[in-house]
Each structure stands twice: as C-alpha cells, then as structure tokens.
C-alpha cells in the first residue's frame, strides 16, 4: 500500500517563492542554470573486496554501489542467461528522513527504475553470464547504498550502478566433475560484457520551469518529476514520472529534449572515471 507521505518537511512558502523568482531569471540557488546538473564526481574501485564498485557525488548527494557475484540457477524461461538483481538501501545514515527497516516504496522504485534501464537495454550481456547453460549461471547483485541524500537519487544511483558494472570483474572459477562450480574470489579477471551504457536524467517541474538534477530543496517544492533514461545514441530507454503532480504533453516532450543534452555531461563523467581507472 502506498500512502501520502505524512512526515515530509514542510517547505516554507517563502522558500518556494525564492526558488521560483530565481528560476524566472534563469538561476538556481546552487548557482547553475536550469539545464545543467550539479558537479559530478565518479570514482570506481572504491570497495576493493567487491567484484565491482563505484561512488558518485552529485553535489552533496552521495551514492555508493557495490557489485557482488555468485553462481546460481537461471530463471526457467531464460535458461541460458545470467541473473542481475538490483537492490537499493536508503540507510538512515544518509538523511534524517530515512529510518531503519526494509526498503520502502521509494527505495523499491529507485531500484526498479535502475533495474529496468539495465534490463530492457540488455546493458549487461546476460547471455555471456551463462556458465553451464540451463543449470549454472552468474548471479550479479547490484547494491545501491545511499550515503548522503541531497536530492536526485535516481541519476546518482544510475551513474554509480553503470560505473560499478563497468568496474566489475568476475572471480575465477573451477568446474568440478560433479558440475559444481568453485569460485576463487582472490582472483578477479574477467570483466562483465557491457552491451550498452545507460544513464538517466531527472528533471523536476517547478511552477512552469523544468530543471535538470534537482537538489533536495528543489525536489521538495517541485510539482512533479520525470526520470528519463538514455543510451549513448540518445535513444530513450526508460521513463518514470515520479512524485505526485502532473505534466502536460508538451512538458514531457520538452523534458525529453532537455534530458538528451544533459545526459552527455553524465556520460562524460562516466567515461573519464572508467577510462582513468584502467
């Protein structure tokens, strides 16, 4: 069941007015224009013992993603494909708004949006994750860990996930005569096969303005938000309207166009981080 959040901070009307009057001048409280994300920092390999990892800072928002791998059974309808799971934890360390407990609807939505972006584009080649087709495949666990929440967890999580997957190397293994697979996690050599890179752009509608990468203040006063996933060719590979409120047809199409430009900045950060890491 989903409930109207009843513990959100109430944003003073004044704050909203300030934000709106800045937007009318093309400005934002964080000193950037409407279509530019905050400063992005991507770092891979931050958890040495994980098979892959990345930390992303998007302004003051900080997200850590770790990838662990295991050997398991494939799904019955895709016997020759590996399995990828995405889980998100909004740990209470990250915000006074988060409480300990199982993932709530926000964490689940976050994980599922990231999951679909990867899955629908076959971003990670799942066929290459079969070890013994029909019985043993790689299971890739992507765990999104939010460390500091200052808005726009979507883009930060997607970027960290993509970077962590690109950072991932599968452990060496030995196949016993019994068919059992023995992992040697001390040696990780085989990188994941990445078919496609996918990132999202989160755009908030505040009054009549569309702003890229809203910070927490902006999210709180926003009328609604839309998260759009793109591949490197600019195809639209996933969308989620998130948050109460509505948009017009024209606003959606405009957001798609704004996002397609903005995502290039994220792709650039991703590329710098993943090539510098080599």
């Amino acid at each position, binding site marked *: *069941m*989903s*409930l*109207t959040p*009843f513990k959100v901070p109430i944003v003073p009307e004044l704050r909203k007015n300030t934000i709106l009057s800045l937007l009318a001048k093309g400005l934002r409280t964080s000193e950037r224009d409407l279509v530019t994300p905050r400063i992005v920092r991507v770092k891979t390999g931050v958890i040495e013992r994980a098979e892959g990892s990345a930390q992303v800072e998007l302004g003051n928002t900080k997200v850590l993603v770790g990838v662990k791998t295991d050997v398991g059974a494939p799904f019955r*309808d895709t016997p020759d494909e590996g399995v990828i799971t995405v889980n998100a934890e909004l740990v209470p360390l990250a915000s006074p708004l988060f409480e300990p407990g199982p993932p709530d*609807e*926000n964490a*689940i*939505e976050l*994980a*599922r949006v990231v999951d*679909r972006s990867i899955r*629908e*584009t076959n971003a990670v080649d799942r066929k290459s994750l079969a070890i013994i087709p029909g019985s043993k495949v790689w299971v890739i666990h992507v765990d999104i860990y939010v460390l500091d929440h200052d808005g726009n967890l979507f883009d930060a999580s997607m970027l960290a996930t993509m970077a962590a997957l690109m950072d991932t190397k599968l452990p060496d293994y030995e196949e016993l005569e019994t068919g059992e697979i023995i992992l040697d996690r001390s040696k990780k050599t085989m990188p994941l096969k990445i078919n496609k890179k996918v990132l999202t752009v989160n755009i908030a509608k505040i009054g009549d303005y569309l702003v890229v990468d809203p910070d927490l203040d902006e999210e709180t006063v926003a*009328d*609604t938000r*839309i998260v759009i996933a793109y*591949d490197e060719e*600019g*195809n*639209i*590979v*996933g*969308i*989620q*309207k*998130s*948050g*109460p*409120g*509505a*948009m*017009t*047809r024209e606003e*959606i*199409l405009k957001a*798609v*166009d704004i996002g*397609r430009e903005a995502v290039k900045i994220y792709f650039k950060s991703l590329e710098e981080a993943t090539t510098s890491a080599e």
Partner: protein
Amino acid sequence: MGKAIGVKLIDELGRRHDGRLPDQMRPVKMRINVLENADGSALVEYGRTRILAAVYGPREPVQKFMALPDRALLRVRYHMAPFSTEERKSPAPSRREIELSKVIREAFEDIILVKYFPRTAIDIFLEVLQADGGTRTAAVTAASLALANAGIPMKALVAGVAVGKIEGQLVLDVDEIEDGSGEADMPVAYAPDIEKITLFQLNGVLTREELERGLDMALNAIRELVELEKRTLKEEYVSTEEV
C-alpha cells in the same frame, strides 16, 4: 510470461494476434456500484484484464497520527489476486505491486481535491482479478470511476492505457502476449479535461519520434475512455462490445 518465440504478432495486413488494428483498444467494459460496503466501486475490463476498485472515505485515518492537517491522506493499494495470473501469485505484496501502488497514488494526488478534507483518509483499493496486460492503466480507470461513484470531488476524470512497440510498430493497449515479446511498453494516465498526464512510464526503447507518436496514440484513446467513464457514471454500465 509466455514469450512466444517465432510467432508473428502482427500480420502482413497490420492485424494483431487477436485481430485488432494497431490503434484499437480491446473491448472495454465499465460498471459502477458493484460493491455494497464501499463508498464507491467500479469494475473495469480491457479484454480479459479485469480490475475491481473500491473507494472508502473521506473517513478518519485508521492510524490517527497519520492525519495531515491541511489535506486528506491518500492511501492506494494495487494488489493482484493469487488466481489472476498464469502461475499463482503469492498474496504478499511484491516489489512490483509496491511500486505500482505508488505511481497510481501519485496519479491521483493532484486530481483529488484533497484540500477539502483535512485530517481524513481517502482509500483506493484496487484488486486485479484477472491479469492480461495493462493492469495498472485499467486500474487507474477503475479508480477514477470508483472515486466519482463515491462522490469524491476531483479536478477531472482520469483514464489510462498502455502503448507498446511490437515488431517495430506502435500498438495501443498491449495484452500479455504482446507485452511479453514487445520492445517497449509505455503506460500513460491522463485527465483530458485539464490536459494533464498523471502517470507516465516507459519500459523499453523508443526513439524521440516514436515517443511522441505513441504518446498521442495513448492520449487519443484516453479521451474516448473518459467519455465512456462519463457514460458509465450516468448509465451504471457500458460495454464497447455492445456498441
């Protein structure tokens, strides 16, 4: 998911596996006042997809500390009956159901005039009795009818439909077979009278041009669905098969 490999889903004449044209809805049925206890209720069918909606409220919130000082608390539960799917679904809420409950709630937060009813709760309970694709959008339609049936004031009626892309072509109101082998699925909910899109998702890949075309296909269909809603609210029952 019954991914039918090798089966053509659109024939050379542009007809879909069930004979529909690309921009054609399945037969739609709407009925209100189907439950006694609920303050409002509706049954909506898109083909074999069948949704039962009940609305309770405005009433005192079950847990009083949740009451909001300036508006009604909205509670939405999208839930699948265990027998609604091909393989039995556990009645415990899945991650998918939790997400869909959220996006459907958010589709109505700005539609219901919640400011009229501070300190109360309005509950929308949606049961998928049979699932054959498009359950979340049919659920939005059913919720809109049940809210109106309960006399809850709204800015406008809302309806939903999904557009899919199969075999390179955009099609309206995808069913489960089409969804299972489709390239994209785009559920949309819309309130035509105020021109607001209140639910919007895309799973899969579309070009910018396809997105715009698909969106318009959905909005056109929703305009008709909302007209059906209006007739249903007058006549209690409407079926496009009978038309």
